[in-house]
């Protein structure tokens, strides 16, 4: 049977209507180059000045070793000015469907959150698909975490209080990072903040089907992202859980997860399923499904009531985690 689409929240729908063609719903492989060149001034990455929050943070780029036999990676590190003891840290992985963005995307919001806890933010620059296929991106992300934990003392970070966080593709990479850190006996992770994470290359859930052609990052765009990362293997039998965490069969022993997603987006069902699988494995997860939310709604309409609720829920979880 076909499933009718879930309606958008009225305020979120209005923001989308106002933005119009600035927000493409479907992205096909031939659009990747143009999307990377997009010059929408509102999408401009935050400057060092903006990230410094009026001088309360210092901003630095560090080039550190990447995975074995791979190029170095760049970490954008924002540190609270004048901290006199080791700080908690947020290790952040940006979104962009595996094909777009850099380590400044989404950082304005992350530093704002981090400032509440006096936390350092480390944002990793990973190689993008399709130029770099799996496992390149996740190995970059992992290498950055390993370096951060190893150099915690120099960075002023408490190595026992490193949270991993990411949105969209960054949320998927963060979930994979949690699995990888567990399986390789890597750095200890305090928690995983998965914001509307991109988890399942199969791209065949009811939510993917019913929201096709609507909102932000629909099924076609999702196929483009996974195709870029996995090539022909996408959706097939042999996809690694470190590429698509929805493929994981063992979700025990993971750090506490916070997962949020909109009810009107492609990722709804895979994100709900991931939280469910964590619980079924005896793990800790907090799940929020925001009614009428399309992908990344709180970034497009930050003042909307449902966006404020979504941001507040994250902070309440972080309050409990960092307390």
């Amino acid at each position, binding site marked *: 049977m076909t499933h009718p689409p879930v309606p958008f929240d*009225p305020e979120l729908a*209005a923001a989308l209507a*106002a933005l119009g063609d600035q927000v493409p719903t479907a992205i096909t492989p031939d659009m990747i180059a143009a999307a990377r060149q997009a010059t929408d001034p509102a999408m401009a990455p935050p400057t060092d000045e903006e990230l410094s929050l009026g001088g309360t943070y210092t901003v630095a780029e560090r080039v550190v070793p990447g995975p074995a036999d791979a190029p170095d990676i760049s970490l954008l590190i924002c540190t609270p000015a004048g901290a006199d003891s080791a700080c908690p840290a947020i290790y952040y992985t940006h979104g962009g469907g595996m094909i777009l963005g850099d380590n400044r995307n989404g950082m304005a919001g992350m530093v704002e959150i981090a400032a509440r806890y006096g936390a350092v933010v480390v944002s990793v620059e990973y190689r993008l698909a399709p130029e770099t296929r799996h496992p390149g991106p996740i190995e970059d992300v992992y290498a950055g975490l390993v370096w951060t934990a190893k150099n915690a003392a120099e960075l002023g970070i408490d190595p026992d209080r490193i949270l991993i966080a990411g949105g969209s593709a960054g949320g998927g990479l963060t979930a994979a990072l949690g699995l990888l850190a567990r399986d390789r006996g890597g750095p200890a992770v305090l928690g995983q903040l998965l914001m509307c994470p991109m988890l399942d290359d199969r791209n065949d859930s009811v939510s993917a089907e019913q929201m096709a052609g609507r909102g932000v990052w629909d099924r076609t765009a999702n196929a483009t992202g996974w195709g870029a990362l996995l090539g022909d293997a996408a959706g097939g039998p042999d996809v690694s859980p470190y590429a698509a965490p929805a493929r994981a069969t063992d979700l025990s022993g993971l750090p506490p997860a916070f997962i949020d997603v909109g009810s009107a987006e492609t990722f709804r069902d895979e994100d709900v399923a991931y939280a469910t699988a964590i619980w079924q494995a005896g793990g800790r997860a907090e799940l929020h499904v925001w009614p009428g939310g399309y992908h990344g709604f709180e970034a497009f309409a930050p003042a909307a009531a449902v966006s404020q609720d979504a941001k507040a829920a994250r902070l309440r979880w972080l309050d409990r985690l960092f307390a």
Partner: protein
Amino acid sequence: MKDLAVRLEALDADAGAALRVIAYFDSLTESRAGLQAIVRGAAVLAGVPARLDDAERRVHVRITPAGVSEASAEPADTGWPRTEIGARAVLALERTGEPGPVDAMILERAAGAARAVLDRTRGRAPAEDPALVELIVDAAAPLSVREVAARKLGLDGPVRAAARPAGPLVLPAGAAVPPGRIGLGPAVPVADLPASYAAARVALRFAADGTDDDPGPPVVAYESLGGLALLAAAPLPEAIPDLDALAHAMASAPWALATLQAFADTASLRAAATALRLHHSTLQDRIIHLEHLLGWPTRTTAGKLRLQIALALRRLARHP
């Protein structure tokens, strides 16, 4: 990612911003969004707080550009861009100074969306009973009776009485003022509303119709009158020479009164010229002509005071 206002600002150059404002409120209306969402939309798109006050239905919504509902103790500023929704509801953007490029469009579209919601929900809004309002501003009514009336009207916290030609009105302290000629009493606890109303009635006498025949501010707050309020208590004699002089000036030129009022209301000739949309040298010529007709200089401090008092007396005589 920046918010909508920043995005829309960046688009002003191509006039797309107005279209996007239209799309925003059309979409809200289509999905039957509520008043909070509509006022929030106005605040977000304008980048300043927005407030909707419907005195009749006792709807008071104020939202900051961050989307947060936040009451304000500050009274509404009559200089803010605003639009009326029906007879007694006002939607205002809390912007002083230069209007934003799409303020007018935001107000028009948000007001249209809000009107649809108010009309749809009108049945559920309790109608304000004029008899109850008259009761709570009546010093002769026992306090206990006035308190019951206030509860029925849903009033608590600081309130101010307002006087209109049609009768009394009671507004929450920070609420926007409905349009038309109106005098405002000070914000007080409910028990002191009779005194606030007495003050509002005095203020109303100083409020102008805003017509050529009665230029000047239509909204006057008692607190702003200072010692001028004492004039209202004085019995006015049959003939006041300075009012005859004003009449003489008015008879000679249709623009006389509006010109004198603007000159009296502003700090400089240049500011008065801007308000009247005249070249300042034209205004200077007119003022010299009017001084001749009035028989006293108006560009001296003492002369300007005399003019202001004459204009105030004229309004008191006109609105007994």
